[in-house]
């Protein structure tokens, strides 16, 4: 899966300045309070304003993610309100922290178990590219080798405002995304990608 999202839409250069209140694709009709829009726009508008994250705190970035969720910075203002523990009910996976070799297959499994449409934010340097553990023997060098990532948030740990900026960019990306075609999850298993022994069913 290349960096651009599934429909092949290149992420357009994001307009700086105040995000428009009304997505520009809506047509204003002369009738009062009547707006015409395609289903796709309405769906994306709804999806982008309520991406529920998965409680997926790994390391120090998890504490900053919690701080972003708390009243001072309040991610909830942007719809990223409820931290869903189960991937079945989460739309957004914020990978916050270092992904070790042992955690890689689990991360891929959690991502596969999430319901489509789903998005991934790689929070912090360790998730983006292995960060300061660039020469560690037990760290995955960047989450995008395991799961397709939509937004990268740099920083170690990124300030809550940086994560909020990441959420805003994800919003604009979702708003512009086309219709979400079903995702086929074949392809090599994570263990094969990471060259580890095929993980058995765990000890009983």
């Amino acid at each position: 899966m290349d960096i651009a999202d599934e429909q092949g839409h290149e992420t357009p250069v994001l307009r700086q300045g105040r995000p428009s209140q009304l997505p520009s694709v809506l047509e204003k009709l002369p009738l009062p309070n009547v707006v015409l829009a395609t289903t796709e726009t309405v769906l994306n508008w709804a999806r982008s304003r309520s991406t529920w994250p998965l409680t997926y705190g790994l390391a120090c970035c998890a504490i900053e993610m919690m701080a972003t969720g708390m009243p001072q910075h309040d991610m909830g203002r942007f719809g990223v309100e409820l931290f869903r523990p189960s991937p079945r009910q989460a739309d957004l996976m914020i990978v916050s922290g270092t992904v070790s070799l042992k955690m890689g297959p689990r991360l891929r499994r959690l991502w596969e178990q999430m319901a489509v449409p789903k998005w991934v934010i790689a929070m912090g340097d360790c998730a983006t590219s292995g960060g300061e553990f660039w020469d560690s023997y037990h760290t995955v060098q960047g989450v995008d080798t395991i799961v397709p990532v939509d937004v990268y948030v740099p920083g170690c740990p990124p300030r809550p405002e940086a994560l909020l900026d990441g959420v805003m960019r994800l919003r604009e990306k979702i708003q512009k995304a086309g219709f979400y075609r079903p995702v086929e999850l074949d392809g090599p298993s994570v263990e094969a990608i990471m060259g580890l022994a095929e993980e058995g069913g765990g000890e009983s």
Partner: protein
Amino acid sequence: MRPLISVARRPTPDSRLVAAAEIVRGHLGPRLLSISYQAGDILCLEVDRSDLLATATFLRDAPELRFDFLSCVSGVDMVSHMLVVYHLHSLSNRLTAQLKVKADAREPVVDSVSAIWPTANWHEREAFDMLGIQFNGHPNLERLLLVEGFVGYPLRRNYQLPRRRWPHGRMVEEGGPVDERS
């Protein structure tokens, strides 16, 4: 380059530590390979691998010593030999001791003290996981931290970290983790 900082002055060890040293020297006698003080407040002992368990039980049960708190078990690869270092606290007498045991560099085997101090269980499993030190008598000596299929013992000196470069943002891994032995 001569270090600019004042060379370490040998602080004099306090009296209770010296008394404890006498008791240990009295009990162990010839089996005590070396005894010294580290910065004046840690009693450093070294014993042979064979009488590690005897020394450990003595240090814990001797009424004057009572080193009942095992703080840390560390494995160190000194290339010529493997070193297992135990740090002990005595809560009642406020003393700290360090017990060193040497083991063979290729196949290190040491007796497990988890029977004496249960806290040693995970410390020893981690030393086994990282350095390959076998602990006889350990309840379940298996991998603790590394991933299931990991090859090699990372903390050994001959284990090189992977050398990675990022030309044009794509990672190139030149020398992978190198461990001649396994």
